[in-house]
């Protein structure tokens, strides 16, 4: 296996992972709306239908609930579907099949089946698509036992985590931030996996820990550079998997830096930062804390259409800089 490092965009990395999965495993197929000749609403499936045919890259009718259920049924009977929601918001139509069926089937049947299903959810704001096409709903699924939920932040992880998801015997939900699709980064060729359930320290630091997800990892790295010029040294934990959470990596980092800021785009209330905060507050890291645990999440508002309003309701680099400054300098 060739592991030369090239630069690919996040969406190319996902497409490459799907191509490898389709090539190497006849049980794998793709299903979604307009993923064939259209190439997917975000061009992630691209020309895969030409390479693998319309029997394995299936354009389905606009029927999210039924389509998700078909994927569950196929997964229970020997296939490995990769199901694309056109926008993560449309998961609202398929929660029945995701939550009552996919997540619980193995449990309800006492272990007699498994549901090796991958679902992909293009998520997040920043595209001017307004309230019904910009949500970040990953926390809902992270609340559901039986599912695994991942949020890759880099092209490298997008490919490796998707390939891990395809191999996983249980349903894996992947939230992809739409603004990441065009972001480039090094991506090894060939097959490799990134383990589900392991966070990654993106930057080592002494003064404070940022636990971030998805696009907020990129924003936090930028904030860290600015903060470095002020002499504040930030450690950045990219959570990568939000169910199950890599407790150890988070807690060790907080014990080291003694300060924690959780940064995520979803609505702050009950977003993943709430869980990270609560997990740390009940852990042995609590005794190490030199400051309150802070969260920077989305505003308690739907995503507005107007671009300035839209930016104002999700955390931006200056918000992260300010958040860390306050945390370190004790300003509140």
């Amino acid at each position, binding site marked *: 296996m060739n592991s030369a490092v090239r630069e690919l965009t996040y969406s190319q990395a996902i497409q490459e992972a799907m191509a490898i999965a389709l090539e190497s495993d006849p049980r794998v197929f793709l299903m979604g709306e307009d993923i064939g000749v259209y190439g997917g609403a975000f061009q992630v499936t691209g020309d895969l239908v030409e390479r693998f045919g319309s029997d394995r890259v299936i354009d389905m009718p606009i029927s999210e609930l039924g*389509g998700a259920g078909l994927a569950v049924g196929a997964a229970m009977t020997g296939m490995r579907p990769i199901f694309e929601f056109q926008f993560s918001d449309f998961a609202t139509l398929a929660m029945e099949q995701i939550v009552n069926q996919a997540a619980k089937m193995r449990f309800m049947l006492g272990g007699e089946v498994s549901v090796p299903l991958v679902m992909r959810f293009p998520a997040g704001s920043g595209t001017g698509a307004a309230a019904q096409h910009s949500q970040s709903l990953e926390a809902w699924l992270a609340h559901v036992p039986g599912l695994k939920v991942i949020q890759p932040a880099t092209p490298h992880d997008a490919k490796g985590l998707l390939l891990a998801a395809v191999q996983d015997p249980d349903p894996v939900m992947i939230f992809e931030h739409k603004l990441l699709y065009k972001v480039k980064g090094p991506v090894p060729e060939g097959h490799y996996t990134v383990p589900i359930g392991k966070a990654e320290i993106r930057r080592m630091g002494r003064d404070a820990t940022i636990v971030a997800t998805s696009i907020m990892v990129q924003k936090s790295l930028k904030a860290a550079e600015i903060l470095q010029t002020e002499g504040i040294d930030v450690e950045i934990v990219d959570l990568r998997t939000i169910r199950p959470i890599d407790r150890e990596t988070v807690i060790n980092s907080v014990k080291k830096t003694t300060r924690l800021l959780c940064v995520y785009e979803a609505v702050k209330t009950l977003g993943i930062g709430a869980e990270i905060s609560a997990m740390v507050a009940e852990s042995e890291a609590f005794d190490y804390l030199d400051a309150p645990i802070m969260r920077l999440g989305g505003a308690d508002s739907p995503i507005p259409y107007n671009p300035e309003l839209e930016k104002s309701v999700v955390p931006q680099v200056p918000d992260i800089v300010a958040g860390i400054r306050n945390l370190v300098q004790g300003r509140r």
Partner: protein
Amino acid sequence: MKNESKSKAKSEPANVPFAFRAYSPEQLRDVLRKMYLIRRFEEGAEDSYTRGLIHGTMHLSIGQEASALGICMPLKSDDQITSTHRGHGHCIAKGAQVDRMFAEFFGKTTGYCKGRGGSMHIADVSQGNLGANGIVAGGIPIAVGAALSAKMQKNGKVVICFFGDGANNEGAFHESLNMASIWKLPVVFVCENNGYGMSTSTARSTAVANIADRAAGYSMPGVIVDGNNFSAVAEASSAAIERARRGEGPTLIESKTYRHRGHSKSDRNRYRTKEEIDEWKELRDPIALFESELRQFGILNDAGIEEVRASVEKEIADAIQFAKDSPMPNTGAALDYVYTELPQ
């Protein structure tokens, strides 16, 4: 028993119902056995519930036995089904053991779901039963997905998708039938129309006179059968299964039947009359109807029928004993089966 031959059936092919032409006396006897088994299983479960041995709720299919048997009879053992909250009959018809079913109801580790699922999730994957479902219409897309698997794997399997009349108003019904049709998947949709979704009659809930009328909206055949007539159901099922197996796509069968019991354990039966219930029980009981045909076509006499009944009584009694004697799950094991245990 051994002396009863198929000769009579063979000599009158035109007037003889499908089942008596298509199946051997042994097979027909087994159909009767399974009809009893369903009924006695459910009566046993009801009784155990009343005595506090089973908790939760359950939905009995007493009165609908011919439908479950007729639909499943033409299936091969590796064909698959998805079932509903009213799924005990389907489970038995598809070959499950009543001892493991009782064990499940009693919450025991020997149950089909190791005590995790109970009545609403009863399944027997080894026999192709992908499970009952607590969500009305929840199993419909799953069945279509299994049919998609069968088509992709070219394994020749057919999938039966059971659901009720109430389920036909769920969006999942619509989306699933449409996809099954456009992709010509090997699935047979079986609507067991017992006249009510819980307390709501089909007349009040459903804008068409017959559920089968909706088949046209998906360009598939819609077939209405008397669900209390085993042979009629088996004939319709057989044709639909063959069609599916030939790759010609799905069929919607509406099997008109009736449940003798209330919807679930908490039903006060306020929405239907005693007369209506009695009429179905007395004049249209599927087991009584099948017995009289068995006699008419010389398959079983009274003694033969009695023998079948007695064997079922014993099977049920043994099964309940097995369930009682089986161990409870360890409460420390509550998290088992949430995820697949990966080999270390």
